[in-house]
């Protein structure tokens, strides 16, 4: 049991390790921007540790810059995080055999990136708590540490877009997305999602485009569902 636990843990750690490298500079950039917004180093560290969502934290800084009151800020962050409800619902089917207490703790570390790795793994193998922990947890101290470093050295890194770092996120998702291809129906779902998300991005505020695209893809899957495919 103990040996199997560590085998799974290290397998998860191996899968997530490239993301640790990719996210260190992104966390540092967030920290630097946070310092620029007047957050102290400790405030930046606490925010990374507690909110722990890159997208939400960048949006929060952006809103703070335009003087949004803290109460409204929380509401805006909740809409940005809403996509996690769908991710959590989807992964719930692969972790149904975990104890509820253990699952509820592990789900704190369900970031976009960890979720993508878990869904990829679950396609071929049964998820274990050890794999979940190994593939998700390491991103957390990594994110907190490097946002603290970024906040304390200020704007030393400069504009990360110069190094294409803003594209790392898209790169991860494209890499994981390819594994979900199951024929033309997947293609139709992807087109529905992409078109809806782009239109929503142009017309709706905040991060509603993610929910809009996701729901469009789900709706298409529902209407094209046929009885004989039921398994």
């Amino acid at each position: 049991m103990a040996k199997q636990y560590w085998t799974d843990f290290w397998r998860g750690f191996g899968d997530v390790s490239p993301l640790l490298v990719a996210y260190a500079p992104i966390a540092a950039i967030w920290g630097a921007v946070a310092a620029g917004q007047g957050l102290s180093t400790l405030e930046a560290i606490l925010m990374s540790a507690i909110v722990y969502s890159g997208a939400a934290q960048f949006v929060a800084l952006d809103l703070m810059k335009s003087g949004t009151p803290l109460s409204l800020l929380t509401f805006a962050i909740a809409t940005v995080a809403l996509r996690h409800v769908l991710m959590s619902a989807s992964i719930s089917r692969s972790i149904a055999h975990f104890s509820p207490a253990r699952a509820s703790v592990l789900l704190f570390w369900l970031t976009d990136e960890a979720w993508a790795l878990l869904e990829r793994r679950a396609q071929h193998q049964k998820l274990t708590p050890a794999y979940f922990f190994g593939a998700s947890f390491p991103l957390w101290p990594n994110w907190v540490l490097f946002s603290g470093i970024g906040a304390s050295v200020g704007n030393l890194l400069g504009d990360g877009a110069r190094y294409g770092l803003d594209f790392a996120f898209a790169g991860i998702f494209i890499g994981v997305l390819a594994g979900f291809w199951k024929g033309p129906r997947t293609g139709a779902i992807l087109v529905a999602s992409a078109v809806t998300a782009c239109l929503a991005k142009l017309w709706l505020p905040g991060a509603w485009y993610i929910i809009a695209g996701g729901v469009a893809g789900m709706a298409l899957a529902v209407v094209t569902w046929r009885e004989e495919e039921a398994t």
Partner: protein
Amino acid sequence: MNAFSVDAAFLIAILAMGLATYATRVSGYLFLRGREVKGRAKAAMDAVPPAILMAVIAPSVFLGTWIEWAGAAVAFTSAMLRLPLLVTIAAGVATVALLRAVS
């Protein structure tokens, strides 16, 4: 300002934000736990990973410039060739960085 100073109102705000993000991460699981999902509901759930992955990246790729298109094309090709995830990320990032440097 001291590096270790923490504003009380800000601390309460980040606690609320943290609670909001955690709530979204655990709620889908709590709703569906122990329920059998089949038929159309299963089809909808199966569509979540590709649909959400696409929805997150589509605007930044398709509404971006030709440079983001090129980066996505390179990453997509790498993914289709079943190259390791790190190679796919690095290829996309390097393409975007290179094209931004020369354009």
